């Protein structure tokens, strides 16, 4: 059954309009992706696994959620036919049009509607087609979803709301198909925010968000939908929100990132090992709010050096929060200033994307500089 589904998904995937895998190299106007994917296999899960890319893993997670609780619904723009990124493929056929349905094209409506469902105890999984278009729903998320439990003294909440939104660079997304808006939301007490770095994490985090008693936003780096292929456990499993993960151990510099950037940093660690002969500790933050300050600080105290990298612009990006916390908590252990390697303080450009992104060379340069500090 699952094999058949996966075959259908693969077929559908071939028609995905955003060509961002190796075959896109055939077309000169679409450049190669800026990172190498490091699969995340061998999680401590017993049972069967299957090779799935990230959209397939999300599709698995969504199907499990719908199977698990009949009071679960999925909605958003174009989700009924499978979604523009194929994450909701076949779900309408399997679970019915009352549970998987299109909404009118209106983001504030989608999130407001989801809050109402969650108020009534229905598990609401809303999709915002691109994170770039989440801003019309900013009011509903920040003033309403985040504050509902607090302002009602715990009488009402919308903890059963999960918002999924594709985010991040994709090679040619320009201003409105590339943004990483996590920092805007990280300033909002009451929300929980996660970013997966691949298929395994996407499924586990999605299932966590759905079960979490607080409203959650999962920003899914869209460039990973097809490039991120893991051996994904088929059973139900969760990845804890609020916990970061050491993806590679090291002792000279701590590198912190999330989403696609983790893969860039893993490559940077290889480069540093090769060219400077020291080891980097690479941390996937995973959870932006609440974030795992303890793990990051512990690593920073060990290595004495920290580089934070994210695609979003630098000023007031989430890197600033990490840097401020680490300098407060690890002041006596730091051997060099904390460095942030981020997108520039500009809108996300179209043809200049390669010059905009905090790619491995910019990250490598930062590591080299703080090692020489």
């Amino acid at each position, binding site marked *: 059954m699952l094999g058949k589904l996966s075959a259908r998904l693969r077929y559908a995937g071939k028609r995905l309009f955003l060509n961002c895998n190796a075959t896109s190299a055939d077309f000169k106007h679409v450049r190669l992706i800026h990172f190498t994917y490091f699969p995340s296999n061998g999680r401590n899960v017993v049972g069967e696994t299957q090779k799935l890319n990230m959209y397939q893993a999300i599709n698995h997670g969504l199907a499990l959620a719908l199977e698990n609780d009949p009071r679960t619904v999925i909605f958003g723009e174009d989700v009924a036919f499978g979604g523009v990124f194929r994450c909701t493929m076949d779900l309408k056929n399997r679970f019915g049009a009352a549970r998987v349905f299109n909404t009118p094209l*209106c983001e504030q409506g989608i999130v*407001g*509607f989801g809050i*109402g469902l969650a108020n009534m105890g229905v598990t609401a999984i809303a999709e915002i087609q691109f994170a770039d278009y989440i801003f*019309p729903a900013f009011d*509903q998320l920040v003033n309403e979803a985040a504050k509902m439990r607090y302002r*009602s003294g715990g009488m009402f909440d919308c903890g059963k709301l999960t918002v999924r939104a594709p985010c991040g660079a994709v090679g040619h997304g320009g201003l409105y198909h590339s943004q990483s808006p996590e920092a805007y939301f990280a300033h909002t007490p*009451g929300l929980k925010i996660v970013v997966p770095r691949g298929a395994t994490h996407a499924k586990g985090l999605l299932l966590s968000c759905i079960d979490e008693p607080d409203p959650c936003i999962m920003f899914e780096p869209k460039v990973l939908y097809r490039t991120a292929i893991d051996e994904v456990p088929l059973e139900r499993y969760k990845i804890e929100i609020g916990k970061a993960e050491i993806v590679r151990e090291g002792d000279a510099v701590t590198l912190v990132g999330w989403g696609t950037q983790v893969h860039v940093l893993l490559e940077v660690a290889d480069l540093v090992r090769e060219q400077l002969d020291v080891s980097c500790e690479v941390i996937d933050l995973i959870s932006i709010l609440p974030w795992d300050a303890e793990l990051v600080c512990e690593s920073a105290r060990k290595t004495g050096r920290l580089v934070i990298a994210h695609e979003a612009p630098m000023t007031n990006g989430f890197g600033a929060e990490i840097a401020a916390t680490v300098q407060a908590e690890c002041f006596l252990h730091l051997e060099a200033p904390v460095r942030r390697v981020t997108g520039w303080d500009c809108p996300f450009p179209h043809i200049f994307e390669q010059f905009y992104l905090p790619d491995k060379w910019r990250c490598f340069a930062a590591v080299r500089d703080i090692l020489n500090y």
Partner: protein
Amino acid sequence: MIASNLLRKLTHLQRVLLQIKKYGTAVDKPQFLGINSIFTNDIQFVNKDNYGSIPIYRIFESSGNVKLPDDKKLDNAYLLNMYRDMVTISIMDKIMYESHRQGRISFYMTNTGEEAVQIGSAAALTPEDTVYAQYRETGVLLHRGYPLIKFMNQCYGNCEDDGKGRQMPVHYGSKEFNFVTISSPLTTQLPQAVGAAYALKLDKKDACVACYFGEGAASEGDAHAAFNFAATLSCPVIFFCRNNGYAISTSAVEQFKGDGIAAKGPAYGIDTIRVDGNDVLAMYYATKSARDFCIKQQKPVLIEAMTYRLGHHSTSDDSTVYRSTEEIAQWSTYAPLARFRDYLESLGVWCQEREQELLNSTRKEILRVLAEAEKKLKPHWKELFTDVYKEIPDHVRKQVNLMEKHLEEFREHYPLDSFIHKK
């Protein structure tokens, strides 16, 4: 297997044939998706003058006549109960408004002139119906049975406020009475109400959602979102627009140019009615029909209640700056309370003596609970940190500890005596 394949091919063929028929050019009928119309050779712009304004449904005629609908008459106890609640809100408003003037509470918003909209509609709902309100719907909550003391607890933010003193006064809410906690951002509750109504439909409940908002709020984008979602997703929700002529100082004339809010309803495919909001029975019967319709059809209804905001917008507003006292005085003569009282007197169930008795006893009771609410301590300061999330996360826990330490050292600079000490 073969049979099912054959069947699939047949349905496919059928669909192809249908599409040929649907998109054939031989017929001179428009075939644009989603539009059912005709072609015309005339250039004619459509505007609100092409058709009559939506009429205003009423029961209390100006001549003093009462034309009740065919549904049987409401019994006297029911009517008196509605009247009593209308009087209670008006007295509570006066006392609370004064309390603000005396600096005893920080803020208040009265309901003067809109008592009939609130009580008339609330009386036609059942306790199973979920209410989403804006802020001028105190009467709805009162008529559901919310005790007077709880209104006061909220306005004072004392330790018995269900909301734990976190929101400004009049931001009431009650799980028990199915009244979702009010928030200040206008219109955000509308798409939420639609989502809640979808949940009722999913659960096949014999109930609907009642969602209140003002005509000013109807200009927000969320109103558009909600109307469109409610219609396209077929949700059992009643939208109650209180069109009271003003959004703070902005008159309805500056708020919209069409035929009010009601005219928007049919444009979204929503069954709509405009009602005299100063006529409590008209509100009752319109709501009752709307409720029956929207539960049976699983569709939304829009009710535009025409009324007038007799009081100031809030305690932070002096409305005589932007409207004349003559205008206010003129509307006072149509005040819903007086009209309802006339009707009750015509039935022989009400008189001046009973009126005075009700006024006195209500006033006394409200003053009593007000004093009671005022005496209670505020919640423990640590309630500042709870309910942000279901569980307090580590980073917030650290901040609780920081504040605790700070208070140990600087306690005399904080009003800790007015707050509960033990937790």
